[in-house]
């Protein structure tokens, strides 16, 4: 950079000057041309003036000579000859007959005559001795006087002067009028002659030619102008031409300059590149050195791999000639490497085999894809072997195929094992199918004779003819009972077989667990009649909804309760449904009996088939011994599990776990009882404060009034309520609370029971009797809450103090209605959409609809709904696809989805939906009420799950 700058600076003035010249060449040429024109014009003018003068002089001298010659000739040849003959010679010859003019007179007249010509020249004759008759015979002006004097002194030299006569340039040319022989005689003799002593050679006077130059000047000037104009025209033409040429030259110069600049830049760039490439070359050399050593390492590794792995490896070129092979292949072939290289398959294998190999190679090369196959071969000894072959096309650096590489190894053993396995599997599947067929046939064939056994014994038992003895009837009864037992056995064995063969399908619907329990209890009531057993159902007052297979769940409950009844002689059998306090979701169903109990060591096996606690129990208590096995299998099918706790002599508790706590407690006792597969708990009830399913919170604008006389309690409650997202107001007494409630119109009020002056009971009473306040939900929070549960009528809930976060927030979630929800209904059937909208009419929600998944996705982009109601079968994007998309999208994966479909679901689909939706409803089956229950639950759940710890 530095050197280049310097160089430029040195050549700058010269270059600038040249550039100036080049840039202004036309202007300079114009100036030069103008100057030339001026000089030429001036010169021409000078020349023309001179020319004019010379011409005028010549012309005047010629005239003067001519006139002098004429007078001399006239004088000598005419006057001298006629005079002797008495012819008068006079100045007034016109008035006298026979007279001729004097030479001077004739000369004057000739001059006058000439003056009238084009040249305009006048001729004057004058003398200092003029004849008296001459009017203007003497010198008239300074010139004439000067001319007379000058010519007298030098008569041979004409005297002339350039003058301006009446503003016209004029030549006055005077020559001496010298006396000749004839003249002297005549003049000296003439009577009027003022002088009579003239001698020959005397200067008599002056002959002057007054020659105006005007016409000559004018002619010359016009010629000059033409010349100048011509020259100017030519000059301009020349200039224009020059301008063009210079313009072109300049263009070329500019172009050249650019070219030079570009070339310079290029050069500079190239230099830089060169430097860079030099640098990178050095780097490359370094890298190459390193790569080379890495290559050596890698080659060593490659070599060790190729030679020591238990694989055969070879390479061939495009002509099928071996180019490399590892030692193993060489020894297998029995040919050393050097003997192998350059040979083809035809040199080592039978023609058909070689042709096959070559064909394989060709295919690999043509498709440029690896082929990975297991080939069957026969050894020369006729033993079948299997070889796993991977053939890969080889390419050079440009990607052009250069050959093929093959790796192969013997997989005969594996192949045989696989074949055996496949055969075994096929056999097993066939056996399974045969088993199913056998089961169905057996079922049918066993039932047919049982039909007769049970049917006929039944008829005989009626003893319609009245001829049977009691003893006969008791035998018939034994036949009847055993026939039925046999039928039970058959049914249960078949069910179990079916479950184990995974042929049992799950049909999901929305079930109210409380109702189901009551139904089962009613069914089994007959069994406790006349027995010392109380059958108790302990279920929550409100509906406990569950997405499940009703028939199978019923069977499980019947089995468990039936079992409990069977092994309980007196006391009670209680069925208890436990729900999550926050979500009202069913958590488990327990069957608690006061029966004989099960010894700890037997707990391990009671779920196995035909394993009652004691071998004798079957005989004593009846039953097939399959009930628990089937129950466990069914509950696993539904995603539940059965746990058992028991104390011999005091009873057992069978617990059907419907979903797990977030952190399930593992009990050693339950270790044999495994949860069905690795299924997650049903997601409908998986929401809790730890859950990642954070839902939109819409309770910010809700106001909760806390009425409590204890400052600490107020602070704690306020904190919890605020944590939930609501606004809080506090009152320290019942009176103040009432007053504030009237002013603030809170959305919910919590009230302590034990307060001075106005107690919580009084507050409740006051609220319920005030029409303005009676609709505000009141929650009692008290240390004596449980004891007063019955007497706090009108409170929506009762909380035990100290109030736990979970309990309070559950109450808030249940009680406070969200401000506004958006529900998106996705269904292609318009009737279905209309129906759903009707069902949703009561909801404080905005309902939006979409025809298919694609449109629904657009709707999601507009606003995220709080709930999606989704059909599965739709044109365009179906419900499953839509669900998969939104569950993968972080923005929507928490949005609860309820599927409403007419589709019959496979167990697989039902499981998938249970994992990703809140509920699945059959279109034909579901009732408006179920639907509302679900919505209410979801909305509550939404709020309870919104709570997260700070």
């Amino acid at each position: 950079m530095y050197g280049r700058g310097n160089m430029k600076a040195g050549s700058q003035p010269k270059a600038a000057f040249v550039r100036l010249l080049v840039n202004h060449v036309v202007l300079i040429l114009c100036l030069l041309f103008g100057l030339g024109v001026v000089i030429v014009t001036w010169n021409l003018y000078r020349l023309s003036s001179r020319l004019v003068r010379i011409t005028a002089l010549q012309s005047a001298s010629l005239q003067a000579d001519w006139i002098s010659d004429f007078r001399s000739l006239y004088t000598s040849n005419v006057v001298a000859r006629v005079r002797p003959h008495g012819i008068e010679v006079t100045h007034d010859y016109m008035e006298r007959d026979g007279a001729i003019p004097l030479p001077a007179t004739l000369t004057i007249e000739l001059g006058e005559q000439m003056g009238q010509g084009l040249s305009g020249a006048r001729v004057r004759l004058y003398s200092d001795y003029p004849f008296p008759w001459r009017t203007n015979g003497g010198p008239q002006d300074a010139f004439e006087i000067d001319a007379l004097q000058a010519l007298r002194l030098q008569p041979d030299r004409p005297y002339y002067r350039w003058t301006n006569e009446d503003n016209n340039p004029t030549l006055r040319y005077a020559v001496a009028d010298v006396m000749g022989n004839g003249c002297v005689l005549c003049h000296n003799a003439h009577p009027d002659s003022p002088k009579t002593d003239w001698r020959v050679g005397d200067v008599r006077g002056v002959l002057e030619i007054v020659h105006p130059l005007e016409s000559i000047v004018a002619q010359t000037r016009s010629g000059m102008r033409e010349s100048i104009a011509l020259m100017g025209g030519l000059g301009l033409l020349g200039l224009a031409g020059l301008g063009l040429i210079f313009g072109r030259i300049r263009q070329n110069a500019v172009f050249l300059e650019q070219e030079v600049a570009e070339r310079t830049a290029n050069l500079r760039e190239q230099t830089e590149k060169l430097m860079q490439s030099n640098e990178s070359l050095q780097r490359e050399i370094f890298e190459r050195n390193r790569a080379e050593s890495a290559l050596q390492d890698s080659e060593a590794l490659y070599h060790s791999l190729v030679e020591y792995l238990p694989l055969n490896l070879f390479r061939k070129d495009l002509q099928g000639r071996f180019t490399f092979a590892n030692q193993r292949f060489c020894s297998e072939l029995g040919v050393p490497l050097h003997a192998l290289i350059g040979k083809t398959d035809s040199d080592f294998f039978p023609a058909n085999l070689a042709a096959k190999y070559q064909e394989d190679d060709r295919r690999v090369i043509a498709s440029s894809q690896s082929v990975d196959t297991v080939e069957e071969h026969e050894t020369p000894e006729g033993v079948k072997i299997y070889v796993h072959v991977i053939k890969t096309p080889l390419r050079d650096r440009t990607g052009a195929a250069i050959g093929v590489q093959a790796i192969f190894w013997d997989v005969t053993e594996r192949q045989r094992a696989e074949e055996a396995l496949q055969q075994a599997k096929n056999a097993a599947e066939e056996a399974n199918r045969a088993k199913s067929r056998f089961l169905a046939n057996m079922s049918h064939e066993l039932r047919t004779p049982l039909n007769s056994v049970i049917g006929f014994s039944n008829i005989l038992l009626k003893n319609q003819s009245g001829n049977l003895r009691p003893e006969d009837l008791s035998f018939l009864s034994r036949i009847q009972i055993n026939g039925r037992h046999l039928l039970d056995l058959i049914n249960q064995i078949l069910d179990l077989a079916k479950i184990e063969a995974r042929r049992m399908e799950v049909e999901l619907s929305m079930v109210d667990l409380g109702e189901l329990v009551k139904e089962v209890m009613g069914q089994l009531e007959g069994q406790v009649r006349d027995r010392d057993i109380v059958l108790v159902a302990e279920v929550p007052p409100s509906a406990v909804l569950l997405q499940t297979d009703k028939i199978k769940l019923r069977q499980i409950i019947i089995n468990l309760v039936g079992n409990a009844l069977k092994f309980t002689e007196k006391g009670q059998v209680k069925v208890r449904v436990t729900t999550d306090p926050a979500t009202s979701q069913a958590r488990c169903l327990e069957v608690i009996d006061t029966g004989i109990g099960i010894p700890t060591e037997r707990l391990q096996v009671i779920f196995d088939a035909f394993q009652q606690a004691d071998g004798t129990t079957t005989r004593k208590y009846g039953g097939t011994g399959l009930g628990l096995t089937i129950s466990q299998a069914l509950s696993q099918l539904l995603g539940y599990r059965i746990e058992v706790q028991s104390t011999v002599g005091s009873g057992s508790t069978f617990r059907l776990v419907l979903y797990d706590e977030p952190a399930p407690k593992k009990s050693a006792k339950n270790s044999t009882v495994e949860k069905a597969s690795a299924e997650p708990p049903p997601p409908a009830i998986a929401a809790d404060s730890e859950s990642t399913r954070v839902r939109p919170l819409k309770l910010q604008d809700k106001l909760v009034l806390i009425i409590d006389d204890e400052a600490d309690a107020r602070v704690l409650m306020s904190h919890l309520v605020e944590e939930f997202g609501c606004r809080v107001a506090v009152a320290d007494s019942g009176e103040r609370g009432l007053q504030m409630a009237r002013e603030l119109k809170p959305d919910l009020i919590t009230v302590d029971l034990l307060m001075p002056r106005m107690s919580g009971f009084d507050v409740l009473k006051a609220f319920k009797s005030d029409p303005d306040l009676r609709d505000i939900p009141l929650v009692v929070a008290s240390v004596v809450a449980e004891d007063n549960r019955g007497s706090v009528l009108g409170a929506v809930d009762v909380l035990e103090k100290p109030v736990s976060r979970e309990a309070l927030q559950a109450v808030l979630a249940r009680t406070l209605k969200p401000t506004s929800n958006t529900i998106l209904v996705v269904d292609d059937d318009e009737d279905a959409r209309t129906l759903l909208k009707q069902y949703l009419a009561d909801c404080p929600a905005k309902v939006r609809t979409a025809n298919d998944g694609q449109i629904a996705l657009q709707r999601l982009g507009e606003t995220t709904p709080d709930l999606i109601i989704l059909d599965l079968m739709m044109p365009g994007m179906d419900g499953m696809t839509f669900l998969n998309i939104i569950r993968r999208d972080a923005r929507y994966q928490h949005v609860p989805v309820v599927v409403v479909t007419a589709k019959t679901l496979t167990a697989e689909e039902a499981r998938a939906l249970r994992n990703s939706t809140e509920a699945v409803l059959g279109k034909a089956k579901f009732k408006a009420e179920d639907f509302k229950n679900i919505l209410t639950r979801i909305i509550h759940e939404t709020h309870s799950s919104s709570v997260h710890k700070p």
Partner: protein
Amino acid sequence: MKRIVLIEDNPDNRLLMQVMLGRTHDLVAFESGAAALAGMGKAPPDLVLLDISLPEMDGTEVLRRLRADARLGQIPVIALTAHAMTGDREKYLALGFDGYISKPILDEELLLEAISGVLERKAST
């Protein structure tokens, strides 16, 4: 007295049904579907009790032919079968049977209830 056609290949079962229903119904029994289809044409019954596992033409085929017959197509048909595994009831109802009674018949009353139930339902439509 309602006229009932029983199609049942097992003679014991035919006898049992005769004992159970014979006094209260006009019961006609056939051994096979073909015989029943031929015999029923003369006097169409009020109800058909149809066994499924029949030799030659099985119960589902008999039902199909009954339904295809202009005169017999409307007669209610109850499947009376020992195919009583889980799902069988649903399967036969889906095939178009009006009722399903599994064998063994545990109680005479159950059978009578099922029959009168189907007849009532048919009458009301």
